[in-house]
């Protein structure tokens, strides 16, 4: 099967405009007859479901949480990018596009990224209209902050809770459609399979997590908005329930999986404190705006951070990357932290941490405040006090969170941070219309692979989720459903629904009947360790080959020795988790396979064999400038298809932030 990315003809600037003006439309009366299923209610799902409901489609949403508002988009802290150029600092659609393509290490599709950049400004308008309380300046206009990988201030934010505010905005728009009867929402429901009829996605099998019952739902189209798969590593900044199941089921039914090995390790997370750790907590990248990252110049220095004099500190990002300093992209910052720790300069009890220090920012802000308030001859204590107040206003909730988790006061002592799994750039392969290789099945937001290449820039995930949901899918879905207006709703007693439900039931029964001795959690932890050690921040051929064998063995063990307590037909979180971990155990293998295939380093994918003399990622454009789209052919049997990436506008170069 040849991949057709369906990129419209014409110049980069015209593609989307032309597409929108010429795509097929569905008239309002027909929209009312067309049913759309949306899996997941994060930024992509909620914004898509709300927008499609407004257009008149009959929409059903499904989420495994107890309310759509809980989706993990809610935890995004720092902000959302948009090429508004409100700061008059040289921003433009082109520059946002360029930064994103470069940030992605030239592994993203130009046309998609340009579309993303061009709708970014509409997102901010839409969110403000909904009442999203973005941060404002005293003049009443919107405020911006800087973010990694860029030199302009284009990030809109709501303290450290931007994701929450955007999701609540989308959730409210969604609830309005529920009230109007355009959307039916199903909470505590998890998708367990796609139903295929005549080669098209025509519905889903979901499990009601409260009663354990399986349900069949028909849709003319199915939208996967189910997020990323970072939890394959067990420890990540994802929510406990975040999973790959919906995407993986789609993959097994024929949707290709794009670039599974591209995972983003976020540089600023609170370090692991012990074996009990269940998840990792991110400290927003926005902290790198004002915080300075350092380690002691001496290996194994056990002094307290405040006892280490200025000249004995190594501000290694500022040293290595003078142009971007602490604001280098995430992949670069993460690797630099790992390099220092591996070389013996790490700090804290585990020595797997670096300092993120606010002392100089507190002084800088304090001095500004002193002069603003006209205080003559301010003493050091006043400057520090006022500086702390400014830092509290900007980052207070993050500092509080750090204090609660670690028991330390970050206003007084530098924070300890270490990289952690955060986001997956890979995902279900989609064409320009966000349609997967299964007709009628779409993937939006983090669930698809499309816009971030091999590394995502900060504050771009929210942008992409909302771009896909508010501004892309309403057009592209119509273009395809226009050919489906004669298709009547298919009754769910159709043999394909019956067969899909039976398949799901058999798998659940099989899981329940193993009655082994080891808990789901324990298997998940073991998988996570393999993935982190061998398919994490640095990868090599030997490790990846070992990992594939280890995962296969672990999967076999899981299917013969997992213990799931409780019954099928009741609220049973252990069974829910088992379903998800079973899929992670298959995905993990594909990630390693993809990482093994990609004999180069790019963005979040760092192969130790391919690095420059000074330890930077070495891309091999002549051989690997393609998207690896994997087709499922059966157990451990994946076939790779290539989508060549053609750069018509941007000329890929060795990425430099020096």
């Amino acid at each position, binding site marked *: 099967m040849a991949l057709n990315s369906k990129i419209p003809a014409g110049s980069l600037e015209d593609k989307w405009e032309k597409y929108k003006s010429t795509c097929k439309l569905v008239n309002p009366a027909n929209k009312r007859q067309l049913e759309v299923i949306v899996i997941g209610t994060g930024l992509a799902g909620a914004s898509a479901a709300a*927008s499609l409901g407004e257009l008149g489609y009959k929409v059903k949403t499904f989420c495994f*949480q*107890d*309310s*759509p*508002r*809980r989706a993990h988009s*809610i*935890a995004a802290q720092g902000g959302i990018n948009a090429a*508004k150029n*409100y700061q008059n600092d040289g921003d433009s659609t082109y520059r946002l596009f360029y930064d994103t393509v470069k940030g992605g290490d030239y592994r993203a599709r130009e046309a998609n990224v340009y579309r993303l950049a061009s709708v970014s400004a509409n997102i*901010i*308008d*839409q969110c*403000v*209209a*909904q*009442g999203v*309380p*973005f*941060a*404002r*300046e*005293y003049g*009443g*206009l*919107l405020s911006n902050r800087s973010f990694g990988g860029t030199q302009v201030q284009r990030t809109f934010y*709501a*303290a450290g809770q931007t994701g*929450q*505010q955007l999701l609540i905005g989308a959730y*409210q*728009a969604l*609830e309005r459609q*529920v*009230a109007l009867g355009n959307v039916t929402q199903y*909470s505590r429901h998890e998708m367990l399979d796609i139903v295929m009829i005549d080669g098209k996605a025509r519905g889903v099998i979901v499990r009601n997590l409260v009663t354990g019952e399986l349900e069949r739902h028909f849709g003319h189209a199915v939208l996967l908005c189910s997020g990323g798969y970072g939890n394959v590593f067990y420890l990540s900044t994802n929510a*406990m329930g975040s999973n790959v199941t919906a995407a993986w089921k789609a993959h097994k039914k024929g949707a290709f999986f794009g670039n599974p090995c591209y995972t983003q390790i976020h540089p600023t997370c609170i370090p692991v*404190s*012990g074996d*009990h*750790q*269940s*998840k990792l*907590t991110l400290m927003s990248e926005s902290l790198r705006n004002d915080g300075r990252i350092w380690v002691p110049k001496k290996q194994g220095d056990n002094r307290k951070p405040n006892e280490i004099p200025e000249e004995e500190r190594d501000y290694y990002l500022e040293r290595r990357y003078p142009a971007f300093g602490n604001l280098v992209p995430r992949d670069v910052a993460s690797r630099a932290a790992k390099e220092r720790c591996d070389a013996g300069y790490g700090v804290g009890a585990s020595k797997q941490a670096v300092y993120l220090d606010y002392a100089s920012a507190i002084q800088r802000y304090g001095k500004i405040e002193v002069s603003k308030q006209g205080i003559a001859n301010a003493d050091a204590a006043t400057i520090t006090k006022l500086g702390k107040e400014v830092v509290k206003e900007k980052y207070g909730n993050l500092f*509080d*969170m750090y204090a*609660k*988790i670690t*028991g330390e006061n970050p206003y007084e002592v530098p924070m300890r941070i270490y990289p952690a799994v955060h986001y997956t750039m890979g995902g279900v392969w989609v064409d320009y219309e966000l349609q997967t290789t299964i007709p009628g099945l779409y993937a939006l937001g983090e669930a698809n692979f499309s816009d971030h290449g091999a590394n995502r820039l900060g504050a771009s995930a929210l942008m992409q989720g909302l771009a896909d949901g*508010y501004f892309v899918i309403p057009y592209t879905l119509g273009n395809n459903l226009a050919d489906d207006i004669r298709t009547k709703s298919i009754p769910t007693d159709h043999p394909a629904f019956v067969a899909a439900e039976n398949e799901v039931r058999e798998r659940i029964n099989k899981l329940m009947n193993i009655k082994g001795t080891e*808990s789901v*959690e*324990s298997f998940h932890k073991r998988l996570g360790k393999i993935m982190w050690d061998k398919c994490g921040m640095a990868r090599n051929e030997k490790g990846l080959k070992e990992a594939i064998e280890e995962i296969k063995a672990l999967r076999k063990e899981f299917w013969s020795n997992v213990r799931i*307590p*409780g019954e099928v037909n*009741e*609220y049973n*979180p*252990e069974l829910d988790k088992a379903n998800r971990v079973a899929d992670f155990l298959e995905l993990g293998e594909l990630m390693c396979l993809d990482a093994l295939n990609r004999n180069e380093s790019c963005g979040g994918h760092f192969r130790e064999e391919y690095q420059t003399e000074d330890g930077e990622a070495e891309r091999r454009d002549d051989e690997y400038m393609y998207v690896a789209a994997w087709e499922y052919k059966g157990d451990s049997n994946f076939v790779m298809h290539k989508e060549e990436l053609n750069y018509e506008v941007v000329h890929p170069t060795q990425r430099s932030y020096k």
Partner: protein
Amino acid sequence: MNLTLKVWKQKNTNEKGRFETYHVKDISSEMSFLEMFDVLNEQLIAEGKEPVAFDHDCREGICGMCSMVINGRAHGKWEQTTTCQLHMRAFKDGETIVVEPWRASAFPVIKDLVVDRQSFDRIIQAGGYVSVNTGNAVDANAIPIEKHMADEAFASAACIGCGACVAACPNASAMLFLSAKVSHLAMLPQGSPERKERVMNMVNQMDKEGFGSCTNIGACEAECPKGISIENIARLNREYLGAMFDGGSKNAI
């Protein structure tokens, strides 16, 4: 540290619940409260017993899913902290900890510590939004908003919808939750055109769901993990009265 836990166990909505006593050992002070529950559940699974069901997801204090009444206090004793952010530093070796679900008739127990909070969704459906379709928006900076109003609106919008306010209230009132949403939208020009019917409809829905009335006790504010101020309830009352006397409720359902 070693702890004794008295945990509410209830098979489903219809069956009666009871307290069950468990013992956990070697709990590190670095653990979060939910990680301590993970330890308990792993132990129960190993013993062939049924684990305790509890709601949780993001484990960073923002999704609003976790919900335990710990020693009589919603989300435990730390100020402005969700259960997932409560750490075991807060407890002493040998302590007995009592853990219950949110208790309110509008939040029926699904199992053990898990409750059904869809009533909150329905309150939002009654009017907790701005009626603006995708694509209708004007340029974001065409609506300047006084900074302190924007900040106030944000402070109200910070509600995570966890329901601790209901659990803490002796009347099981949802006034703090509802008032936070009414305030968030009433303080912004975008929310202004619908403010009257919004407040009427949302209050009606709250009553329909079986939440109690507010008698100015203030436990909601004290237990709110996000510090939502009780001033929001005063603002809600003003909005409600204003809407009633203004006849502006004519669009209300």
